[in-house]
């Protein structure tokens, strides 16, 4: 399912957008200009990764510092132990869309978030 998120122009680099789907999805625009989408809720406790500390292709959970690789969803170290699900990001006519993963929410997924919006 393709879901429109926001205009690319409204999502500056270094920022994240929280999409109120069920479960919620976080879309990140990295300082390098890449776009990634992952399930928004940390796999440790109830924290929104869109509120986290974005650095390179990693987001650090805003509460307890587990880091998730936005490309794979992989987590670096406990307290979080499970990866987050990744989703594909597509930009069309200046609009950011997310194609929700078909994987079941929660359990491990290795699908890589697609690099988009790399130019400029």
């Amino acid at each position, binding site marked *: 399912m393709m879901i429109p998120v926001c205009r690319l122009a409204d999502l500056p680099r270094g920022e994240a957008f929280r999409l109120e789907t069920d479960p919620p999805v976080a879309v990140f625009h990295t300082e390098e200009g890449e776009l990634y989408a992952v399930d928004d809720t940390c796999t440790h406790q109830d924290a929104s990764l*869109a*509120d986290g500390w974005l650095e390179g292709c990693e987001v650090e959970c805003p509460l*307890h510092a587990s880091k998730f690789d936005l490309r794979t969803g992989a987590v670096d170290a406990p307290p979080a132990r499970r990866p987050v699900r990744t989703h594909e990001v597509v930009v069309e006519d200046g609009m950011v869309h997310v194609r929700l993963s078909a994987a079941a929410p929660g359990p491990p997924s290795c699908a890589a978030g697609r690099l988009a919006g790399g130019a400029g």
Partner: protein
Amino acid sequence: MRAVLVVGASLAGLSAARALRAQGYDGRLVVVGDEPHRPYDRPPLSKEFLAGRADEAALVLEADGEDLGAEWLLGARAVTLDPGTRGVGLADGRAVTADGVVIATGAAARTLPGAAGPSGVHTLRTLDDARALRADLARGGRLVVIGGGFIGAEVASTAYALGLDVTVVEAAPTPLSGPLGETMGGVVSGLHADHGVRLLCGTGVRGTEADGGGRVVAVVLADGRRLPADTVVVGIGARPCTDWLAGSGIELGDGVLCGADGRTGLPGVVAVGDCAAWYDPAAGAHHRVEHWTGALERPATAVAALLSGGAGGQRAPRPPYFWSDQYGVRIQFAGRAAGADTVTVEEGVPEERDVLAVYRRGGVPVAVLGMNRPRSFTRWRKQLAAAAS
């Protein structure tokens, strides 16, 4: 470097072992810890674990399948460090000699002065402490918490949720005024009254009273008042575990005195985590940072300094950060409140315990406090880090 010994097998020790391997060290690695347990996470001990919402498996700090190629000597206490050989003597008579030593012995809960208390009086630092306290809280009744700091407040909040009748006793006029300052200390400790937990401030504790069976029945305050209690928690802070370093030549103050990269005065020896007082150039003083994230992150800096002999030009650590969960409110703090001359509320309403407050010194932000405001908190925290580096 062919052998590195890490003393202390908790968060800071594990993070040091990880950092050694991540930075390419492939020699012998020995980790010594005096608890019998593999590294586990302490923050849940006053929260989810104490409440019975998390089991022991959830406390494990190692990732599934993680193998650092280390020799683990658990249930072994280090008692001496020989400055000449960097040999560490263990209580059981064994000795381990290494080219590099990482001191990560953390801190131990302070106890009330005097003889060991009656049964039903607890401190909370280790898994074994938490198991014992959890069993006592399950009896219900009246809990008196001595000390209104973060651990005391979290235990009070957890016990309140479990249905106990809770009183918190604090010697200072306002709890948390050390870490948060008077105003915000008052806002955060206002959470107790919001939930009908009694908070008695400005009074010390004379001692505890026990029944004939040696079980606590009351806490006696300095002013003579007597608070009946079925269980008591003493949450009056922690002292660094550095006794074993006496005679090693390492400089000790409130913790192991280190440079801004964790190096001690003894070549080949660094200190990390709750036992270490790193030099903070911004404050011009040594500080012990007793928080989880410091014990997680700073070992990478110290290990880089150890492996390079101090030639590394290490990246400055991020400003201290901690979180606390009380009465369902997420409290986050970064930076240092001491030395701030103003505190302003930037978002939210203090009375609603929904607030983002910024501490400034001469107009420059030095610390930030958030209650239930993770997003703006992270922004401010990043800004503080950028300003500090």
